[in-house]
């Protein structure tokens, strides 16, 4: 029998995404974000997660998806990446989904660009596709303009 995998799912611009359930620390509603000037655009800012300062990453920007409509407040999916908590900002939270391992397929060749490094592939659910994210990669941020500027 094929192995079962569990994913914490969420929506971005109507698409269904998922990260491994074991990577997820918690899911919380919107928290006030303190922006970080000069950081990469992908970093939305810092949040206070019960006394711990956590970097929030705007997954829409990370995945090259159009910005979230103005008034909508994102949710925080807090994941553990290299032993550090990182919050991924998503539109809406979905269910915890259990899938068969063999429903997985790598992304098609036509998927190009940096998104390809973040999306491991898809699981074919009955009614839609579940995009599986590489948690580590999703938390990675390209060198900021600041760093580049100082190094030159």
């Amino acid at each position: 029998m094929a192995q079962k995998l569990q994913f914490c799912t969420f929506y971005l611009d109507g698409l269904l995404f998922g990260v491994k359930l074991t990577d997820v620390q918690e899911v919380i509603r919107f928290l006030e974000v303190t922006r970080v000037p000069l950081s990469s655009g992908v970093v939305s800012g810092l949040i206070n997660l019960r006394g711990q300062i956590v970097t929030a990453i705007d997954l829409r920007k990370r995945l090259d998806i159009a910005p979230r409509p103005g008034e909508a407040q994102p949710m925080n999916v807090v994941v553990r990446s290299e032993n550090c908590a990182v919050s991924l900002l998503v539109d809406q939270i979905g269910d915890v989904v259990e899938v068969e391992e063999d429903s997985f397929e790598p992304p098609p060749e036509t998927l190009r660009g940096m998104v390809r490094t973040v999306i491991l592939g898809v699981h074919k659910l009955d009614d839609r596709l579940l995009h599986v994210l590489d948690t580590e990669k999703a938390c990675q941020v390209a060198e900021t303009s600041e760093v580049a500027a100082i190094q030159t």
Partner: protein
Amino acid sequence: MPANDSDIVSEFLAESYENLDRLDRELVSLEKDPQNRDSLAGVFRTIHTIKGTCGFLGFGKLEKVAHAGENLLSLLRDGRLNLTPEITTVLLGMVDAIRQILAEIKTTGLEGDADYSGLLERLKLLQSSGAKPDAPPASPSAAPPPPVAPPIIEAKEVEKAVIQPAAKSEAPPAATGTASSETIRVGVNLLDNLMTLVGELVLARNQLLQYSNLVENASLQAVSQRLNLIATELQGEVMKTRMQPIGNIWNQFPRTVRDVALGCGKEVAIEMEGKETELDKTIIEAIKDPLTHLVRNAVDHGIELPEVRVKAGKPRTGRLLLRAFHQGGQVNIEISDDGGGLNRDRIKQKAVERGLLSPDQAARMADRETYNLIFLPGFSTAEKVTNVSGRGVGMDVVKTNVEKIGGTVDVQSTPGHGSTVRVKIPLTLAIIPALVVTCAGDRYAIPQVSLLELVRLEAEQAKTKIELVHGAPVYRLRERLLPLAYLRHELDVKPKDGAEAAGAINIVVLQADGRPFGLIVDTINDTEEIVVKPLSKQIKGIKTFAGASIMGDGSVALILDVLGVAQRANIIGETHDRELEEAVTGTGPQVSQKSSFLLFTGPDEAHMAVPLDTLARLEEIPASQVERSGTRWVAQYRGQILPLVNLAFALEERRSRRRHKKFFAAGAENARLQILVCNYKGQRVGVMVEQIVDIVEDSAEVRYPASRAGVLYSAVVQGQVTELIDIPAILEGSGIEAFQDERAAEVIQ
């Protein structure tokens, strides 16, 4: 039979590391005093303990190494062998080998497969060769150059994982193992977690206090006040658990000095003062490498060869002095040697060769600036590259590392008499006082160590007072041009709501790399003690931020890295040149002879001033906040009660002893009172003056004796005859001490 009981093994490891650290010290001191049977016995016992335990745990290789060492030591102990530098070197090599095996055990649980047969061979050899009773008495000074030590790989810093009990180097070696009941071993992780939790508790406490002030509920307020006290005390105590004596890292220096000195044929004695000076663990770790480098440097470069010393009329043995002491909320560490001092001309010559200075500049450069050139990257005057120093990296790394933790380095030198490197570092990094400012709707914290002063320009002034030097904004601060930077531009932020703050301008005068500059912010909020949290790796690369902190209302604020901001604004690059220019034109030192005064108007519009360094802060409070407590006037201030003294009455009371019914003149009930907050006998006292005028720098050279009590002298300050007020004398006459009892009584209630 590898031991499988990990608890016993980790206990063994921790204990052995401590023993080894002591061994290093004891062996080096033994070398100086080979006849000291007590310390020899101590060394023997330590090795014996290690040997015994590892035999019990089944670490055969370790046992073999320790055993060979023990054999050699037993000969020494029985007086059948005399300690020579050669023997010491091999014994130290054995200590290193044991460390290496222990590190291996720690990471893999096994002893590893490094080969120590060479070392064992040497240990045996010395045993037999030196065992003759007629072995020539060793005289360390005349000893031949030591043989090449067996290949030694420095053991990793595993000791860090354990907080060591208080330094006990003075205790006799036999005392260990029995005195353990008063200290317990606690993992550093646990302490870090405790610190985090206390930080959270403090935040929760702040929120509760805010809430309890809104709700009129006496019992809630009482409870929250008590919580407040307890949390503050708890915070203090937890901070203390992270404090370690600097001796913990100094203890390895005798060994370092010995190795380096032996390597370059020098004789050096190391002395230490203030070993017990305590520092936060994170700082201790951060300064370990820079200090080690400075010590090695002092031996390699600073102290001369014995023959040279003798020729110069100095004792053969060089002296290296390490001093640590607290001063003004900072820890000072000094490393002094009595060597030849820095060679001023060679430094200048090098600087010119490297294109750092023009020959003309070099010729006129002051000594102090010259010496500090050695901290520039790639600067080394060592004539030959040794394995210790001279590679041109080092001093600049020392400087960068020290500055990273908010410290400063400075070097002083007297030709022929040696040099002193002074490192100043903050006590702790975990909780620092900071100035909170607002820029484009966000709050930022600025560490107060870099803060010099605040300047506020009203709207009309702002238009004219900020001038441009070919587009670069400057402000004339006490007749010197202060380069300005707009925080908003440097951070490239726009206000969230799009509203443009107009009118008054707030300049935060900061110091970066010894140079002042003004940072223009939207609003200056307050000073606050903040808990510093590191930035995550996603944003760590941004040089303008040193960390982040959680404010009283639970939101996150970034902590500005003043050095980073200055670099971004190009302040540092420019001013480095300026510093040189000033050094050559000689304008720099003159300024330092001046002192800063706060000018204000006193009673009857008299011109008065106080030296700025007697003041803690300046405050403006509404007159309605002044309350009466017993016979005193007070105001609530930063969660404490601030006793108030009206300067006008204080000067007058000395004559009339008249009691005043009101703190301020009639009709001033709605005015805002200007208060100078001073530190006096361990508490803060507010002195009310009529009007604060300005802060000026003046030498106040023209002086005239005081005409009344409470005045130091009259002087011409900024072209005006001004009375210099003697704040302590004023407060002396106002009975402030009695106040402390009242305060204590209140706390008890």
